């Protein structure tokens, strides 16, 4: 016997509820794991190679009189100079607190970079009592160009176009690792 049309339509459909409890369990476990393993303190690094000399290369380079830009820290001032006198030596007095004037050093290095845009190396000669904080600050000012600095361009030999210099002297080398100064 056929059912009446009205009763056929009355199929009881209960709303399906998605069971979210296992999802939440998984999420909470994941968050716990990530919070435990993630370090929110961002650590950055500044790389510096140990200076080494190859005799053949050195002799060849010495003939060309390299810039070998050097920043030497002294008791009362910092000196920017070149052992081969490619630039005029400049002495920058320390701040009243007795620390190297990193901003003035940065500005002086900018003018050197404008003269030698292809140079990437710089030698730093700190004093024995220079703190790690000052070392990092100096290296930052030697390596990086800030957005407020005047733009420096260098000619790309391959394309012949002038390109914006994005780093000052990124290769920092310590000059007195073997000496006693």
């Amino acid at each position, binding site marked *: 016997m056929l059912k009446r049309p009205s009763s056929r339509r009355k199929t009881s459909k209960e709303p399906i*509820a998605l069971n*979210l*409890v296992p*999802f*939440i369990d998984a*999420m*909470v476990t*994941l*968050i716990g794991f*990530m*919070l435990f*393993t*993630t*370090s*929110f*303190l*961002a*650590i*950055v*690094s*500044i*790389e*510096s*190679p*140990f200076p*080494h000399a190859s005799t053949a290369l050195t002799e060849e380079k010495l003939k060309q009189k390299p810039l070998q830009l050097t920043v030497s820290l002294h008791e009362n001032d910092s000196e920017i100079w070149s052992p081969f006198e490619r630039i005029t030596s400049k002495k920058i007095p320390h701040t009243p607190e007795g620390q190297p004037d990193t901003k003035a050093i940065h500005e002086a290095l900018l003018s050197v970079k404008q003269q030698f845009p292809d140079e990437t190396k710089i030698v730093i000669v*700190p*004093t*024995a*009592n*220079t*703190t*790690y*904080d000052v*070392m*990092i*600050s100096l*290296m*930052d000012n030697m*390596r*990086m160009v800030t957005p407020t600095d005047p733009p420096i361009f260098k000619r790309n030999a391959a394309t012949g176009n002038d390109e914006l210099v994005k780093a000052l002297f990124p290769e920092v080398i*310590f000059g*007195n*690792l*073997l000496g006693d100064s």
Partner: protein
Amino acid sequence: MSFHRSIRSRRNRRKLPGSFELQLTSMMDVLVIIVVFLLKSYSTSTSSFAAAPGLQLPISGSLDSPTESLQVIVTPESMTFENERILDFVMTSGSIGGPETAVYKFKATDLDEGGRRIVPLYDALMKARDKAELLRAKSKTRDPEGKPLPFEGILAIQADKQIQYETIRKIMYTAATAGYKVFRFLAMKRDG
């Protein structure tokens, strides 16, 4: 009185329906947002370096993230290599005023080569180098000539901001004599 009130309140208590369900959708939303945020920050911090407790790192504007390498941590009181304390500095006689003003220096027995090389650090670095070279010799990864990959010789230095260059120089000299030719100075990233 209190007994009657209690009965009344029990009677008046609203009964929960039999099929009560907690609304979890909004909670899921919050959890998904937290997971996405954590995944985003997790992917950018792949290095295993973390600031050592009690160490005040300087702040740097560098953008380079340190990759995996051996690490030496220098605090004003001690030196740690790969989570193993290798030496303690000694307080100088002039710093009796208190720990805040104390000045520490190396023990004479910890130095050699005219005070340039740190003996415990050299031993630890050589041990780590031998281990790394042994692992590379056993590894199937080879260079184009079929030889084991050369030892990278990278040392990360994490020092307190007050540590002097005299100490850092000794560490670099010691590392160089042990065959480590590249140094990574670690610092905290500057905000913004």
